[in-house]
């Protein structure tokens, strides 16, 4: 096996007809499947549509009747709830803080997680598998239990109330899943690729950057999507440590003794735009066939 053939420079452009499900789909009758999927998709969408309609109805209408009644008199729909949120000062500042936290901790998790995932998958050291099990076990730590000891720690180290404290907290809590996912993913990379690279004298660092990362892109992309998402929507950690991302800001708009659905609904929609954009952006890394033909 030559070094040239061992690299992934040769990318096999997949023939769509080869796709696994293409055959499955042809094996089953095509149209009933499409209809079924469409029906499932529509049903899946109903609660989200409900939330959206709730966000464009005035609060006084919602206390009277269910949100689907809007179809009977669509003229009451209004975007007043949304504009009220935007006119409230502080929204942009909170959005910026959320962006710092979400992007910061996602990058950290991906980098640290990939390094560790590769170590558990393809490097050897004593006790490797037991440590790996230990890392997975840490998935179970509920973050409420870390609030008190971490608060004391941040007080002592002067990190209280900083964005960095939140980034580190989220990154640490995201690591067990990241390491679990990436290690299990990397393990699926054909061992021959790595072997030939090593035989050719490649250093581990080079293997990591030039082989593992490109091949692991789908997993890294999905990890990034979820880590970004989970930290974008977090409330309790930022609230406890005195930082104000958008979730805390929205929370500060809720009324004490009156229903705030006219704030919650539009705020949820404003808030989901960015994670959705991240989803679209990273979706294109789910390209199949990167590995096809690379070992020939």
């Amino acid at each position: 096996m030559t070094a040239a053939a061992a690299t992934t420079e040769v990318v096999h452009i997949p023939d769509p007809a080869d796709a696994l499900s293409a055959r499955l789909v042809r094996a089953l009758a095509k149209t009933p499947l499409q209809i079924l999927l469409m029906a499932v998709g529509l049903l899946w969408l109903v609660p989200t549509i409900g939330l959206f309609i709730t966000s464009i109805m005035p609060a006084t209408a919602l206390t009277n009747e269910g949100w689907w009644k809007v179809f009977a008199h669509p003229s009451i729909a209004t975007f007043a709830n949304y504009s009220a949120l935007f006119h409230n000062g502080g929204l942009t500042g909170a959005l910026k803080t959320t962006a710092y936290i979400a992007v910061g901790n996602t990058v950290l998790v991906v980098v640290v997680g990939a390094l560790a995932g590769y170590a558990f998958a393809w490097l050897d050291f004593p006790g490797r598998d037991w440590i790996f099990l230990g890392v997975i076990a840490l998935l179970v730590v509920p973050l409420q239990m870390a609030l008190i000891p971490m608060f004391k720690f941040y007080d002592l180290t002067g990190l209280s109330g900083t964005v960095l404290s939140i980034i580190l907290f989220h990154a640490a809590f995201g690591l067990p899943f990241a390491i679990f996912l990436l290690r299990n993913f990397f393990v699926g990379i054909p061992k021959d690729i790595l072997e030939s690279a090593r035989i050719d004298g490649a250093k581990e660092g080079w293997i990591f950057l030039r082989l593992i990362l490109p091949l692991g892109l789908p997993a890294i992309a999905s990890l990034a999507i979820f880590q970004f998402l989970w930290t974008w929507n977090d409330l309790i950690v930022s609230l406890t440590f005195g930082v104000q991302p958008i979730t805390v800001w929205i929370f500060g708009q809720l009324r004490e003794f009156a229903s705030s659905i006219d704030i919650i609904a539009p705020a949820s929609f404003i808030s989901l735009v960015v994670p959705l954009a991240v989803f679209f952006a990273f979706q294109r890394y789910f390209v199949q066939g990167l590995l096809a033909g690379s070992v020939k």
Partner: protein
Amino acid sequence: MSNLGITAEPPVAAAPPPPEGGERKYLTGGLFLLPALVLLSVWLLYPTVYTIIRSFFGPSGYLGSWVGIDNYKTLFTTSALVTAIKNNAIWVAVVPAFVTAIGLIFAVLTERVRWAVAFKTVVFLPMAISAFATGVTWRIMYQQDPGMGAINALGRVVSDAVSTPGVLPSALPSTSALQPHGGGLILKTPLHPGGVALLGLTGIAPDAMPKGSVQAVRPSAKPGQIEGVVWRDFKPGGGKPGVVEQGEIGIPGVTVELHDSTGKVVQSTTTAADGDFDFKNVAAGSYQAGIGAQTFAKPFGGYSWLGPSLITPALLIAYIWIWAGFAMVVIGAGLAAMPRDVLEAARTDGASEWQVFRRVTVPLLAPVLSVVFITMIINVLKVFDIVIALAPDSSQANANVLALAMWRTAFTAFDFGTGAAIAVFIFLLVIPVLALNIRRFRREV
């Protein structure tokens, strides 16, 4: 080579040939691992150790006073916590399997459908909405009142198509002379030809009265007939029950039945605009007049999704709705990176699509599937946000789960010691999960 004998081996994480000398490779491994170990030790390991130690101490203070295993005794004897353990068992049994299976099906089926991205977005959207907003949305959807809750509204549409509700679903008798009878009402006082039956009803809102109703009039007796009136026996202030007064409106469209002394219905008629009805050509004898059950048939009242018995299934549905997107995306990533040559080999050897799927694809996907499955098990052991946001307080005791019990005990009842004990119990629950999977890891080594 026998084509049907081809089964893909789960990927083997065999140790690659050592790069350069013994210690050097350990050093490399250590360096790659170092940042992760630092973050994990400070933010996860230290709080875990703190929590374990804290669970042996009293309710308040950073450490508090030693109480030994008292907190654990409380844990296993308080009924609230026993319910929580039971509920978590249900969650663990149901959710990970459903989520992984649905995610796998969606990931596979949408790979080739032209509008895959649209479908994936739709299924992924629930993950992007905060757990709090999702809880609020589903709580509104699950409302019992069919006028306010979407799911029961659908139930009402179906139910109304099958059986029409009565004209007066909420009516009540105005005097004790009217007694319940087979779902309807019957006037106990016996009637003879020439008698007058007064069937007064209350509990009807003015705008629920049938259209075209007018002032009720007490009919005069006619020989050989039984006269009567069905009317809304209420005027502002109450009025005199059982007496037809000015301001009290008759109820049209009600079916009145005449029962003979054996209870058989011999005549039935419908009331006029002023509530008047008459039974003509009545033979001598004793009769009773009554209103049939169909008048009072209640419309569909809605299921109590948020009630104590259905709350856990209601939560499970909402949770699966959220997390199927997670499974679909992660498994989709796994599918995208699968090496195709093994599949090609199997196909050229003559295996059918289903065989390829079952014996090649799924085993190749096994590591990713296990990530999804195990992550879901652990997520479900920690489930918190959706239970607190969706379940009304009256069902919280029935919907209770361990992470919620822990948080309540620590932060609402201010007993950190017992809260820590519950957390330790959650920690311990993960051990069987890992033990089941040790076999898999062992095999790979």
